[in-house]
C-alpha cells in the first residue's frame, strides 16, 4: 500500500513540479477547443449544437496525447525495470499510474468542461449529463489508454501509433457519454446511459490493468 | 455486339458495378501476387543464406 501511494504521489509530484504537466494537458484541451470556433465559424446556434461533441472528442484527444509519456519516460530512464522488479505486483503499479494519470487529465478536464461549455454556448440542460458522463468515462480512458501506451513501448514509436491503437478502444465511452447528453436534451432519463458508462468502466478496469501489465513485461524483455 | 454493350452498360449502373468488381479484383489479385512473390523471394534468400552458411561450418 505504501508503495502504491508512493507511485501515485511521485507521478503527481513530477507533473506539478516546474511548469506542471497537469496545467499543460489542460492547456492543450483549452487551446484545441478554442480552435473550433475558428474552424467551423462563430454562429452561436451551430456551436451550441456541436459543443458537447467537441468537448468530448477533445477530451479524448487530450488524454491520447498525454498517454505516450505515461510509460515512456519511465521506460527510457530505467524506472520501469524497478517497478517490474518491486515487491508490489506490476498490475498494482499500473493501476497507481492510471489513477495518477486520471487525476492529472480526466479529473482536470471534467472540471474545466463547464467553462468550455460556456464558451461554446452549450445548452443549459446539457451541463449536468456532460460532467457526469466525463466523470465516469474518463477513468475508463485512463485505464484503456494505458494498454496502447504500454504496447507501443517496445516498438520505439511515438504518439501516433498510440492514437491508432487507443481510439477504437475509446469509441464506446464516447458514444455513451454523448448519448447521455442527447437523452437529457430530448427529455429521456439519464440513468441508463450512466449505468452503461459504469459498466464500461468495470470492464476497462481488469482489461486495462492486466493488458497494460502484460504489455509492459513484454517491453522489458 | 449489342448484347455486349448492354452487358457492359449494366442497366445504367456501369459506374457502380464495374469499379466494384475492378477494385475487388485489384485488391485480391494484388494481395495474392504480393504474397506469392514474397514467398519466392524468401525462398531464394534462404537458399542463398544456407549455401553461404554451409561452407564455413562444415
Amino acid at each position, binding site marked *: 500500500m*505504501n*508503495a502504491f*501511494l*508512493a*507511485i501515485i504521489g*511521485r507521478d503527481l*509530484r*513530477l507533473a506539478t*513540479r*516546474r511548469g506542471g504537466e497537469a496545467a499543460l494537458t489542460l492547456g492543450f484541451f483549452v487551446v484545441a477547443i478554442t480552435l473550433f470556433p475558428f474552424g467551423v465559424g462563430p454562429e452561436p446556434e451551430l456551436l451550441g449544437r456541436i459543443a458537447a461533441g467537441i468537448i468530448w472528442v477533445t477530451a479524448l484527444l487530450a488524454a491520447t496525447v498525454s498517454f505516450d509519456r505515461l510509460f515512456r519516460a519511465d521506460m*527510457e*530512464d*530505467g*524506472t520501469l*525495470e*524497478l*517497478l*517490474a*522488479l*518491486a*515487491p*508490489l505486483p506490476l498490475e498494482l503499479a499500473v493501476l497507481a499510474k492510471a489513477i495518477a494519470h486520471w487525476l492529472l487529465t480526466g479529473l482536470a478536464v471534467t472540471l474545466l468542461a463547464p467553462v468550455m461549455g460556456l464558451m461554446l454556448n452549450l445548452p443549459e440542460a446539457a451541463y449536468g449529463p456532460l460532467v457526469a458522463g466525463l466523470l465516469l468515462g474518463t477513468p475508463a480512458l485512463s485505464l484503456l489508454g494505458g494498454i496502447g501506451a504500454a504496447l507501443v513501448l517496445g516498438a520505439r514509436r511515438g504518439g501516433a501509433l498510440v492514437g491508432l491503437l487507443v481510439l477504437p478502444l475509446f469509441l464506446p465511452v464516447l458514444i455513451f457519454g454523448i448519448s447521455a447528453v442527447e437523452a437529457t436534451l430530448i427529455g429521456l432519463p439519464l440513468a441508463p446511459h450512466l449505468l452503461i458508462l459504469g459498466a464500461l468502466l468495470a470492464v476497462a478496469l481488469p482489461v486495462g490493468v492486466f493488458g497494460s501489465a502484460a504489455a509492459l513485461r513484454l517491453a*522489458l*524483455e | 455486339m449489342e448484347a455486349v454493350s448492354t452487358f457492359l452498360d449494366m442497366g445504367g449502373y456501369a459506374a457502380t458495378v464495374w469499379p466494384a468488381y475492378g477494385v475487388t479484383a485489384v485488391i485480391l489479385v494484388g494481395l495474392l501476387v504480393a504474397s506469392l512473390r514474397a514467398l519466392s523471394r524468401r525462398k531464394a534468400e534462404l537458399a542463398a543464406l544456407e549455401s553461404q552458411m554451409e561452407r564455413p561450418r562444415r
Partner: protein
Amino acid sequence: MTAATQPAGLVADHLRCERGGRLLFADLCFAVAPGGALLLTGPNGAGKTSLMRVLSGLLPARAGRILWQGRDTVEEPGPWRRALAWLGHDNAIKPQLSVAENLAFWSRLGASGHSVPEALEETGIGHLADLPAAMLSAGQRRRLALARLALTRGGCWLMDEPTVTLDSASLARLGTMIARHRADGGIAVIASHDALDLPGAQALDLGALDTARA
C-alpha cells in the same frame, strides 16, 4: 552442482538464454551462498547483461530454473522480489526531483533496512541531497543509483557494470559497500570489465563458455 541439495542463497540450475535467435549460454549452473559474491566477466556481447536480466526475472529463461533460498523464483516470485535490488545500465533517476526525493521514492517502493541519509552518506553524495538530480554529473548520478542498493539490508544485489563513470574515491567506497553488504549475509552478482576487489568471490567468465562468441 545439482539443484537437489537446495541450499540457501541463489542457485542457477541449467539456465539457457537466446537473444535475437542466437544462443548465448546453455546449461549454466552456479550457486552463491549468503555472504558470497559472483563476478561475471567476458567480452562485449558475451551475455553478462542478458544473464543478469534472466536472473532478475525481466527476461524469461528458455530453460532451467533460478532458486532463491531453495524456492523457484518464477513460480514463487514474492520472496525473490523482496530480496532483490537491481542496478542496470540506466540509473532510473528523475531529473526533476532532488537527490533525496529520488532516493525516498525508491525506499518506499521496496523493502529497505537503511535510511535515506545513511545511504547517501555511504556513496558520498550526502552534500548533494537537496540538488535537483538534473544537475548531477555522470559519476554523481551513478552514485545516486548505487545509493538505492545501499538502502537495502541483506538480500541479493544484481549490479550491471556498477563502476561506470566512478572516480577512484567512489570505487573504494563501492568496495566497502559491497563488503558491508556481504558481511550482513547479502549476496552480490556483479558484471564488470573493471578489476574489482572482491575477496572470496566466485568468478564466471561468460566468454570462456563454448557457446559464447565475441
